[in-house]
C-alpha cells in the first residue's frame, strides 16, 4: 500500500511559535501556563491558560484577512505557511489538484461567534458581520488555508472533540492512498474568550488552581483537571514516492491509526482505548516491543488517568515503555493537541531524545515509566500518540523513523 510520510511541520504553541522555539522550550521543560490575559478571569472558577503571547497577526497576514478571521484561523494560516516552507514546497507550483488540506476543529472560531452573538443580542441583527456566515464555522481553517495556498485537492474537516487531530491526519493518509500527492493536515484551536471559557467550564474538567506549576498534573496524586491552551500543529503529509522524487527531507512515516468510541454509560461494557491502541499497532504491523515512546493523552482527571494508565500497562506491560506528556507545558490545545504531540514524536525520532512531562510527580498507583524532569536520551524508531475526546472518543497513531 502507498506509504505516507511527513515532510513538513508547522507549529504554534504557548511554548513557542515555530518548530525550533517550540522544541527547544519543550526539551528545556519550559511551561507556557499562566493567568489568563485575554480577558479578566477573576470571577471564573478557572483562571489559568496556555496562551500564545507573542503572535501579531497584523505583521504576518494581509490586512484584508483580519476582519474576516477568528484568532484560531490567523494562527492556522501562519502555521500552514511554516509547514509548507519547512517541507520546501510552494503548493501552487504543484499540479492543480495535487494538494489538499484536512483539519480538525473543536469549537470553530468561537471568539468570532461570541462577538457576533453579542452584536445580535445587544444591538440587533443588522449589526452582525457579513463574515459571521463562515468565520466561526468548523470548516473555516481548511477553507482559508485552501484559498491562501491555492489548494484544490481533496479537503475536509473532522470534529472529534480532542481526538480529532489524529482523525484528520488519518483522513489525509486515506486521501493520499487514493491518489493525492500531498495533504496539509492537523489542527489549530483557540477559544480563550469569556464565552469559550464558560462553555469549557461546563465540561467539569478545568483545573481551578492558581499556581501554574500545580494546575495540570496528569498521573499525579494531585491531578484535578487540566489547563486549556491555544495553538496546535499542521503537518505536510506526502506520498513517500512523491517525497523521494523531489528529494524531500522526511521526518517519519505515518504507519498506523485506529479510533474508537466508548460505549454509553451504564452499558456494562469495557472502555475502548486499549482497542484503539491495539488496532493502531496492528495497522502499523507493529508489536508493542517496537514502540519506543508513548505520547499520552494525559487528561489529569483521576478516573481518566487511571483508564489510560491501565490501557498502556495492558498493552506494554508495567513500566514497559517510556511515556511522556509534554502538553503539561502548553495546556490542552483541544484538537490541536494531538497533531502537536505527533510533531513532537517526529522530533524525538529525529533527535533521539524524549521530552519531559513538566510539573508532574508520578503517582505510585500507576505502573508507568513516565519521563519527568530532564529529557531522556533514547534511540526512537517508533512512537505511539494517544488522544481522547469528551464523549468517549479514542484515537491512536503510530509513526516510524524514515527508512
Amino acid at each position, binding site marked *: 500500500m502507498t506509504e505516507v510520510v511527513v515532510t513538513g511541520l508547522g507549529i504554534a504553541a504557548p511554548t513557542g511559535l515555530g518548530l525550533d522555539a517550540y522544541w527547544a522550550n519543550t526539551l528545556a521543560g519550559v511551561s507556557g501556563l499562566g493567568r489568563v490575559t485575554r480577558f*479578566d478571569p477573576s*470571577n*471564573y472558577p478557572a483562571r489559568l491558560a496556555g496562551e500564545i503571547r507573542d503572535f501579531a497577526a497584523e505583521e504576518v497576514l494581509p490586512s484584508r484577512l483580519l476582519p*474576516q478571521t477568528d484568532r484560531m484561523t490567523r494562527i492556522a494560516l501562519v502555521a500552514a505557511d511554516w509547514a509548507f516552507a519547512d517541507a520546501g514546497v510552494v503548493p501552487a507550483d504543484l499540479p492543480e*489538484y495535487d494538494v489538499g*488540506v484536512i483539519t480538525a476543529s473543536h*469549537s470553530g472560531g*468561537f471568539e468570532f*461567534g*461570541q462577538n*457576533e*452573538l453579542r452584536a445580535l*443580542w445587544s*444591538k440587533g*441583527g443588522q449589526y*452582525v458581520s*457579513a463574515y459571521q*456566515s*463562515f468565520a466561526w*464555522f*468548523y*470548516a*473555516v481553517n*481548511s*477553507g482559508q488555508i*485552501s*484559498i491562501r495556498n491555492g*489548494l*484544490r485537492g*481533496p*479537503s*475536509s*474537516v*473532522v*470534529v*472529534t*472533540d480532542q481526538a*480529532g487531530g489524529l482523525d484528520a491526519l488519518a483522513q489525509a493518509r*486515506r486521501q493520499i*492512498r*487514493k491518489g493525492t500527492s500531498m495533504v496539509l493536515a492537523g489542527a489549530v484551536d483557540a477559544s480563550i474568550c*469569556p*464565552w*469559550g471559557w*464558560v*462553555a*469549557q*467550564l*461546563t*465540561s467539569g474538567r478545568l483545573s481551578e488552581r492558581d499556581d501554574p506549576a500545580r494546575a495540570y498534573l496528569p498521573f499525579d496524586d494531585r491531578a484535578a483537571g487540566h489547563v486549556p491552551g491555544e495553538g496546535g500543529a499542521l503537518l505536510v503529509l506526502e506520498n513517500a514516492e512523491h517525497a523521494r522524487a523531489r528529494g524531500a527531507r522526511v521526518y517519519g512515516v505515518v504507519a498506523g491509526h485506529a*479510533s*474508537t*468510541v466508548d*460505549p454509553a454509560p451504564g452499558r456494562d461494557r469495557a472502555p*475502548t482505548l486499549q482497542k484503539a491502541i491495539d488496532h493502531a499497532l496492528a495497522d502499523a504491523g507493529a508489536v508493542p516491543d517496537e514502540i519506543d515512546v508513548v505520547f499520552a493523552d494525559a487528561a489529569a482527571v483521576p478516573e481518566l488517568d487511571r483508564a489510560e494508565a491501565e490501557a498502556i500497562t495492558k498493552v506494554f506491560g508495567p513500566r514497559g515503555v517510556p511515556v511522556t506528556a509534554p502538553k503539561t507545558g502548553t495546556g490542552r490545545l483541544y484538537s490541536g493537541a494531538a497533531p502537536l504531540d505527533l510533531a513532537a514524536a517526529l522530533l524525538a525520532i529525529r533527535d533521539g531524545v524524549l521530552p519531559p512531562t513538566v510539573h508532574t510527580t508520578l503517582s505510585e498507583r500507576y505502573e508507568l515509566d513516565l519521563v519527568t524532569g530532564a529529557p531522556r536520551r533514547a534511540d526512537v524508531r517508533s512512537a505511539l500518540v494517544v488522544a481522547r*475526546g*469528551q*464523549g*468517549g*472518543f479514542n484515537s491512536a497513531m503510530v509513526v516510524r523513523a524514515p527508512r
Partner: protein
Amino acid sequence: MTRRVVITGVGVTAPGSPGVKNFWDLLTAGRTATRRISFFDPSPFRSQVAAEVDFDAELHGLSPQEIRRMDRAAQFAVVTAREAIADSGLEFEALDPSRIGVTIGSAVGATMGLDQEYRTVSDGGRLELVDHNYAVPHLYNYMVPSSFATEVAWASGAEGPSTVVSTGCTSGLDAIGYAADVIREGSADVMVAGATDAPISPITVACFDAIKATTPRNDDPEHASRPFDASRNGFVMGEGAAVFVLEELESARQRGAKVYAEVAGYATRSNAFHMTGLRPDGKEMAEAIRVALAEARLNPEDIDYINAHGSGTKQNDRHETAAFKRSLGEHAYRTPVSSIKSMVGHSLGAIGSIEVAASVLAMQHDVVPPTANLHNPDPECDLDYVPLVARDWKTDAVLSVGSGFGGFQSAVVLANPDRSAR
C-alpha cells in the same frame, strides 16, 4: 478485491412531517414545506422564511433527559438514525460493536442551542464577561458538535471509528464519502452515516441576511425557494437530517438485505477561490464529478439523474449548470436534473444527506422528484430541470452534488450494485 459499500437503511427527518414516507410523498407531489419562520418573530430580519420540521422529540421516542441534553440537531440525528437502523433490518446487537462506526455531517453544529444559551449567559448581550452561573450543564456538548456522533453511537451501540464531518454545505455528502472509505479500507463493516443541522435561529438568519444569501420573498413563503428560475433571489434556509446504514456489499447480500444503492464513487475538490463566492466555470465541481465517476467505473452516459445542489442563488445555479456540461458533455442535456431545495429548503450541512436520500428513493421507485416553483428558467440555465411535476424515469445511477462555503465541491455517485462495470 476492493470492498464495496451499499446503503441498506434510510432515515429522513425533513421539513414538513418527519419520516422517509412523508418526505417522499412531499417530493413526488411537488409540494413545498417552506413557510414564514415560526420559531421566533422573524419580522426584524430581511429574510423571514424557512423550511421547518414539525418535530415532536418526545413523540419520536426521546426521553426527557435526552431532550434536555441534546440540541435540536442532535435530536434529529438520533431519531433519524433509529429509523435507518430499523429500516436496515440489521441486528446491531448481534454485531461486534468495534466493527460499527458513526459519521455525522453538520455545518453549524448546535447553533440553535448556542444562540439561546449565549443570550442567557450574556443577559441579552449586556455582559461581555458572560456569567457561568447561568450556563446549562451540557453547554460543552453544544460547543463541540462531535457530541452528535457520541449520541448516535450510543443510540446504535457503535464502538468503532466515529466522528463528525463539518465541511459547510457539503458536509452531508462528505460524511457519506468518509464513511464509505472507512468501510472500504476495512476499519469497519457497518457505518451509521448521514448529516443533521438545525440552523433556524436568529444568529444564522442575521448572518445570511448580511450577505444577502437568503431570499427576501417574504410575501409568498410557499413559493420562495426557486432554484433555476429567472426570478430566484436567494436560498430558503431549512433544517433536518438524513441518516443511512452503510454496509459492505458481500455481508449485506449474505444476510439478504434490501439494498438501496451502492455508494459507488465519491470525490471532493476545492475552488481555492473565495469563502462564499463561486467562479462561473464550475471547473472544480466538474473535476469532483469526473473523479467520482472514475471511482464508480461509470461513464457520463451511465448517469440517469442528477440531484443538483440547486440552492436558488444566481451564482450557484449557473456554476453547477456549467459544471454538469463540463463533466458530462452532451449527456448533461439529456439527463433530468432537479433540486429538492425548492421543496425542503437548504438545511446547510444536512441537505447533502437528505439529497442522497432523495436520490436512493428515486432509484427505488424509478421516479425523479421535480424542481418546484420553476416556471421561467434562467436563460443561462438550459438543462432539463424537471419543472413542477415528478417524472417516471428508470433510474439506476445518480449523481448528487454539493457546493459549500469554504470552496468545497463534492460529488457522490450512487448506482445499482448489479450494473455492468465499464
